[in-house]
């Protein structure tokens, strides 16, 4: 079922973050296009066996981030902006870039050396 999420209590991230991440993935992948209705909070709660308050928190934060919009009495929908997918993809890129730079610094590399690593990886592709 396209509505299913795969959550784990043993994941290092708290449940509400897992829910947010997976919903963003569904949007990024195109499973849930702009305007797509999200399951109601109680529906998702019952389907994933996660408390209502946790799902509510995930939906609230997704809305604050502009990823979904909630209409009173109608439910929540994937934000109807062309940029939602682009914004999510950009956030992914930034996350990886920061990770790359941090990893490089932990190895004691200079910025130029980190750039060289990236160049090499790009040339190999």
């Amino acid at each position: 079922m396209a509505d299913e999420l795969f959550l784990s209590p043993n994941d290092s991230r708290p449940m509400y973050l897992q829910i947010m991440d997976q919903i963003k993935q569904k949007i990024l992948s195109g499973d849930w296009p702009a305007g797509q209705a999200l399951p109601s909070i109680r529906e998702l709660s019952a389907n994933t066996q996660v408390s209502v308050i946790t799902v509510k928190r995930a939906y609230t934060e997704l809305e604050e981030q502009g990823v979904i919009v909630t209409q009173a009495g109608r439910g929540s929908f994937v934000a109807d902006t062309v940029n939602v997918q682009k914004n999510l993809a950009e956030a992914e890129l930034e996350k990886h870039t920061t990770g790359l730079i941090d990893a490089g610094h932990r190895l004691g590399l200079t910025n130029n050396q980190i750039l060289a690593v990236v160049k090499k990886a790009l040339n190999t592709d």
Partner: protein
Amino acid sequence: MQNAIEFKQVCKSYPDFFLDNLNLQLPQGQIMGLVGANGAGKSTALRLLMGLIQADSGVVEVLGHKLPNNQVLAKQNIGYASEDIRLYKSATLGWHMDFIKSIYSGWDDAYAKDLAKKFDIKIGNKMKGFSHGQRVKACLLLILARRPQLVILDEPTTGLDPVARHEVLAELAEILRDENRSVLFSSHNTQDVEQISDTISFLHKGKLLDSQDKETYLDRWRRILCTGNIDSITLAIEGITDIKKSGSFCEVTTNQFNDTLVAKLSQQGLSISSVERMSLEQIFLANVFSKAKTGVAS
């Protein structure tokens, strides 16, 4: 929207135990997980709700009905399961289903048969042939098939194998779909409580230590690993419940986590290695073993 459950200043005395001024509410449409060590008062609280025992003082209200006077009215809409409940050994599950059906008008036959299939228990089998896990599931079926407004469960998954636990949790989760129905369950299975509860209430030696929405509660607790010198100033920082040392390496436990706390520790000259969230099980242990417990509900 009324509260499904209300304890107001409830006291109950036993020779070795005292339930001390319990103030607790469960709003309608929520799931509350009741946690505490053996003997903390969980079963006492649940028995008070079912009119099995009577409070010495204070008010117990369930679905708007005062207990124990109006318990008959209240119980029409409550489903209660605990280890205390015995089924007739030489009768079949089917017999029990008919028995319950004859008493409660809300019985859903189709759902009952569906549950029997999901739980993999045989309607035609006598109760004496049921294993512990099957008996627990049978009791649950007898309750859930009535679709009661309030479900009260004493240790619903204790002693169940992982598959049975999963089946039970899945059915409890189904109740979540209806915003008019509420669940109160006590459990040692902190993982279940952590996953499915909206509110966590923590009982310890007859006192309510905490009752708070789960997200906020889990957000408050952290274990902070750091190196450096812990001294009396550190010990006095508000919100620290415990400090463990191993040489210059230490673990600080806090139940009032915020960024200024980390800053204060750094100001002490401590070098922070990591700040970790805590599982409900870790919080449970921290609460029980903590030296500075004041026993005041937040």
